[in-house]
């Protein structure tokens, strides 16, 4: 007996072919590296009749400097992001975040687009079919109740992509393509706070690439807490970017993953601009993070731990970056 449900694999060579495949096959999923999708299908989390391989679309494998910034195709493998000289020079935080995804064997096939569009995760969802069946399934798949918050009306599964916060603190944009053509949006607008529908993509839209502005003098880093240090999804992951002007902070962005149903760009950081990053400011960063994250009972580590570890990682990372030498 096959480990996977039966499906037809379509290799799309153009965006038009993806759109046509999705219009003619109602139950259709997009396939890139497959490291998350194939594992989920093995767990019975969906049984699509069609998979569309999008890694062969034009531009999906490109990394290039363009007038508007550094453009990275959504099909670029994470292992390539870790090693690529252009990425390491222009966006080292992205290489750092990509290196924090799973293990080298996953990174060899997992893609940037797949990591950005990663399905949300939950202890009640990422389980075997018989486990979920015995629990009457859950709101995210085949059930009617979110076991994390049974009185609520939405799924609380946590977003767990590591590369999203790194791109958010760099002010990335995302290129989407579909039947209506292509469009650019701020990466932040790609996500929604709903574990069962966390991507704001149109029905026939695909993430094609991301673009980063080239920003001189910005220092950025990424850190995550996880249960299995060698390979695991983040219990909480934090990216920070900052610019220092003398003894004062000139720019600060903080983004989180693993704590909400979407990657979260922390608001209120502007209140710290123009001041030194002293103990009070670091405490303020911790408070901003603690106030805005909303971890729920979606991992075996308790939510209050993830809230506190997110705050600790953010202030610790900001302190390290503030005292690091300013990049050229």
């Amino acid at each position, binding site marked *: 007996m096959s480990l996977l449900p039966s499906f*037809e694999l379509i290799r799309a060579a153009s965006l038009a072919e993806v759109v046509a495949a999705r219009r003619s096959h109602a139950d259709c999923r997009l396939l890139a590296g497959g490291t998350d999708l194939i594992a989920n299908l093995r767990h019975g989390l969906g049984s699509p009749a069609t998979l569309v391989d999008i890694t062969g679309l034009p531009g999906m494998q490109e990394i290039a400097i363009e007038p508007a910034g550094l453009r990275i195709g959504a099909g670029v493998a994470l292992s390539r992001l870790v090693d690529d000289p252009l990425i390491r020079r222009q966006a080292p935080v992205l290489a750092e975040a990509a290196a924090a995804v799973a293990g080298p064997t996953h990174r060899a096939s997992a893609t940037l687009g797949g990591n950005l569009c990663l399905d949300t995760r939950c202890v009640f969802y990422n389980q075997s079919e018989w486990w979920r069946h015995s629990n009457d399934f859950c709101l995210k798949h085949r059930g009617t109740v979110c076991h994390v918050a049974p009185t609520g009306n939405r799924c609380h599964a946590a977003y767990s992509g590591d590369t999203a916060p790194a791109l958010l603190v760099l002010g990335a944009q995302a290129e989407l393509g579909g039947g209506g053509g292509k469009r650019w949006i701020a990466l932040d607008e790609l996500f929604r706070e709903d574990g069962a529908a966390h991507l704001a993509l149109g029905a026939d839209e695909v993430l094609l690439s991301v673009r980063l502005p080239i920003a001189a003098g910005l220092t950025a880093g990424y850190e995550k807490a996880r249960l299995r240090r060698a390979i695991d999804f983040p219990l909480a992951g934090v990216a920070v970017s900052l610019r220092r002007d003398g003894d004062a902070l000139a720019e600060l962005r903080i983004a989180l993953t693993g704590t909400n149903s979407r990657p979260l760009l922390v608001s209120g950081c502007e209140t710290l601009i123009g001041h030194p990053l002293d103990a009070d400011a670091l405490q303020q960063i911790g408070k901003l993070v603690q106030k805005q994250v909303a971890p729920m009972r979606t991992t075996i580590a308790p939510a209050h731990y993830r809230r506190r570890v997110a705050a600790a990682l953010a202030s610790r990372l900001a302190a390290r970056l503030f005292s690091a030498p300013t990049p050229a």
Partner: protein
Amino acid sequence: MPMILSLTLNGRPRTDLVSDNLLLVEYLRDVAGLTGTKRGCDGGECGACTVLIDGAPQHACLTLASRCGGRHVETIEGIGSPGRLSRLQRAFHEKLGAQCGFCTPGMIMAAEALLRRNPDPNEAEIREALSGNLCRCTGYVKIIESVQAAAGDAT
């Protein structure tokens, strides 16, 4: 839907009819009869199914066989031969890197990819290269010593 898959398996070209949903680990074990590649978990967590695809270590349990057309796939059966162990197999044998042996094919394939890329890795680089491979017997110390011994053999 069935398709014709032509690939190079352990240096030899072969062609088979496979279904779109056939995983590479199923193809290797059930179609090609190469049972050295193990199925240890239910999806990418243990690394026991690690094979090399065009020289890069990948999970055969997360890879569709039908996406391997035209590619070079190497399994543990392509490393060494009966009576003629490879340097890694010899080192795992002599340094007691294998206990129950279930994780060993995956460990050796991941280590083989590392040593081809970096013939003289330090301990941190070995740990990183094997970070996707679980072993429930050895505690990893003997495995790392085995890879170090194999690297030393080559120099």
